[in-house]
């Protein structure tokens, strides 16, 4: 198939993760009380990191798959 689903998934997760990281960093200083509800953890920042790592990994897999020989690619 011509579209490797790992690319759009990776991309979306990387973008959304990045957005959460930026927002998490911003609110860390501007509105720290916001995180009382999540037991004091800045979950925007942490979950953003997890998501963007996952997104980067998927994108890397997708790009790797695209450069391999077609008969090996799955």
């Amino acid at each position: 198939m011509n579209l490797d689903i790992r690319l759009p998934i990776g991309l979306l997760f990387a973008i959304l993760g990045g957005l959460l990281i930026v927002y998490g960093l911003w609110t860390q200083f501007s509105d720290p009380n916001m995180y009382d509800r999540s037991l004091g953890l800045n979950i925007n920042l942490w979950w953003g990191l997890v998501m963007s790592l996952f997104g980067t990994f998927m994108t890397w897999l997708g790009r790797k798959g695209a450069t391999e020989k077609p008969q090996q690619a799955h």
Partner: protein
Amino acid sequence: MPSFALPSFLPLAAEAVTQKLVTLGVSDILIIVGYFAMVLGIGWYLKKQTTTSEDFFMAGREMTAWIAGLSFLSANLGSLELMGWAGSAYQYGILATHWYWIGAIPAMLFLGIVMMPFYYISKTHSVPGYLQLRFGEDSRAFAAISFAFMTILMSGVNMFSMAKVMEVVLGWDLNFSIWISSITVAAYVALGGLKSAIFNEVLQFMLIWAGAALIPIMGMIEVGGWANLQAKIGASYTHAWSTLGSFQDNPMGIHWTGIVFGLGFVISFGYWTTDFLVVQRVLAAKDLRSAKMAPIIGAAFKMAVPLIVILPGLLGLGVLDVKLVPESVAKVTPGAHSYNEVLPIMMARYMGPGLLGLGITALIAGFMAGMAGNVSAFATVWTYDIYRPFLNKKASDAHYLSMGRWCTIIGIFVSIGTAYMVMRAESIMDYVQALFSFFIAPLFGTVILGMLWKRATPAGGFWGLLAGTVCSILMWLWVLFDETAIRYVALSPHAKPMAENMYRALWSWIICVAVTVVVSLYTRPKPDEQLTGLVYGATPIPGEGDVPFWLRPIFWAGMVAAVFVALNVVFW
């Protein structure tokens, strides 16, 4: 599992509840918009590749096992499913996991190992299509019409429930939610067909996890681990089997025989192995090995879904200060929230601006996955099993392709119509769910006999299917008009509606099988050469070649089965 198995969690929410749970900020809106852009983008990109009806309805039969497996699971994991079962976990405790473990895993493994070869080798494009090859046009017509009709009604019911949730949680207008979400689904399915539906389902599956996984994590941190949670909410809510010895000992009012035979055997096998909505995804696999692996991969992930569905419900019991109430009570009590809202409530408890957008995206993604599943299956069955054989036999491939596109759009409009019907009279929802349950169990009887028993004849198949379905309807009517009849249908006067559902499925399956066997023995069987590729014993199943054991489906099925047994023992 199909949501019809649990009538009590519908209808969702009420007019009485006016204050919304959360308000979205700019960051939340950005996340939701990003998601919409991505699903539409995928549909648009795939339009170029969708040039034949085979591309549109079968996704070109080129999906890998992973993609087919995840979308197989995702098409079932609608938002109704997520919120309904979280609510049931709040209401009934860990008993709700039976719908994820015994009510799914054995059936999914059975589909992969035993049934998939026949579906796949017969080159059928649908489950009614298989019935036509095996039993002839009558069975196909019966199965196709009932399936198309039910699927589209269910889709409308889901649409309404979703819009209702959005109203309760976000204060969004019902009409706004219904139209925006369904136009998006119509666009990406009509553009890219099944391939677009499948790819988006994989994306949606991951987003559901991304949006919901923090609830159990934060919840577990707050209560301080499983042992503390167990101490807090009581052992009867955290043991899956030990209270099932009698109808009175557990909040569901069910006996283990109902769970094991009714749910675990008939309902779950019927749903997972013959509901075309899920089977269609596996038929799109690129080869037989992928087709066998797809349900096994799906099963492995299915076992993990209670983490984001059941556990939040249990945690809700442990940490929420307010008591959630049944739907009927919430409806007439201003400010009260029903069981079914436990997932969004838990979401709002831990997630502030930012992540909340992701959580809402997860709910929308779940809804769209289920909806796209319904309409793509509907379009296929309508075009291949009703339109082509009965209305317009000889049209060009391009004609069937455009029929598929239009069907998708029309299907969505019919669903919207259903959603508005339900909005006027919410009891319609219960009837639609009941209707759906009439067909699933007997259909499983017919398909499994067709696959495993060469002697089953076309007449046997048709009359068995018809008899099973009609008896199911009659039993349902009997209990509807005479409540005491439940002591006969569900074997005990203490049984609850859910138990009745399970036993009714069991009886209708038994009737279907008995009638099929008897009629078959009195009618002339099909000659063996017409059964090649369709039935066990008349089908050469290609070997797997010289592949190492870790590439064999049966090895992974064994691994999944081992984990499945371990989970049930741990949570006994």
